[in-house]
């Protein structure tokens, strides 16, 4: 087992590397990657848009795995992990939709179009909004079990989002094809650095959120246990 002190140092290192990777990513995006010939400068949105999308898929895969483990093992820690990962995934999907829209306006001349990729991504966003609505509507073990089922079933949309531009006619650019990644080497390096930065941020965000859920549960437990004691304590305070 790693001691508490060592764990703190380790997490500080992960934070440091996440920030360093994000700085490196910003440098490569603006000073190293070449300007795309037809779209111009706005193509650089791609270096944030794609990594956030990949990281969101990873987040929902983690929700899927943790939900299965929760239903099998009935251990609350898997439910906490699923919840933390779903929240970060939802934030990232929101950023994907917004950055995609900001890229689409100058390139497609519209903020939004009902393209298969865009539509399936919006459906994905709604699925995880529903996941949190379900959690707040049904609390306790019932809520956790229902959310786990939705976390498993909802993941079905992730491969659909990925395959949508291959299955249906689309105007969305295709970067990853069966023949490989269709990018100029400097663009590919920039994308990889940005992806590493987002993955590190994802790890630290999920960890912080997980920690918070555990703390909140502990607090609820202490409050519940302390009711008669605090009542006695209040009485003692009034006496003094």
């Amino acid at each position, binding site marked *: 087992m790693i001691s508490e002190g060592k764990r703190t140092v380790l997490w500080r290192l992960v934070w440091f590397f996440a920030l360093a990777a994000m700085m490196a990513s910003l440098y490569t995006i603006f000073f190293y990657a070449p300007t795309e010939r037809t*779209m*111009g*400068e*706005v193509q*650089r*949105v791609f270096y*944030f*848009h794609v990594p*956030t999308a990949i990281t969101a898929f990873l987040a929902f895969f983690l929700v899927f795995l943790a939900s299965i483990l929760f239903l099998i093992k009935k251990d609350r820690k898997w439910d906490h992990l699923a919840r933390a990962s779903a929240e970060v995934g939802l*934030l990232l999907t*929101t*950023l994907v939709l*917004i*950055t995609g829209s*900001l*890229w689409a*306006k*100058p390139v497609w001349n519209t903020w939004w179009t009902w393209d298969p990729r865009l539509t399936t991504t919006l459906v994905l966003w709604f699925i995880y909004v529903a996941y949190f609505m379900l959690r707040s509507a049904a609390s306790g073990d019932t809520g956790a079990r229902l959310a786990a089922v939705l976390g498993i079933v909802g993941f079905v949309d992730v491969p659909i989002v990925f395959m949508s531009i291959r299955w249906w006619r689309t105007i969305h650019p295709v970067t990853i094809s069966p023949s490989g990644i269709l990018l100029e080497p400097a663009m590919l390096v920039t994308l990889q650095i940005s992806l590493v930065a987002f993955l590190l*941020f994802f790890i630290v*965000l999920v960890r*912080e*959120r997980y*920690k*918070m859920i555990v*703390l*909140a549960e*502990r*607090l609820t437990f*202490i*409050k519940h246990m*302390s009711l008669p*004691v*605090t009542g*006695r*304590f209040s009485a*003692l305070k009034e006496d003094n």
Partner: protein
Amino acid sequence: MTNLSYLFAAYAVVWVGIFLYILAISRKNARLEREIRELENQFQRAGMKK
């Protein structure tokens, strides 16, 4: 809006989004830790008085 304005808006949205989220989490974490400490202190003091 020019091409660069869209680029700037996209990056601003991502950075502001991520940092507001981190800020919200850290503040809530700090509040929870403080509440737990206060309750634990209450427990201890109540135990001693008893």
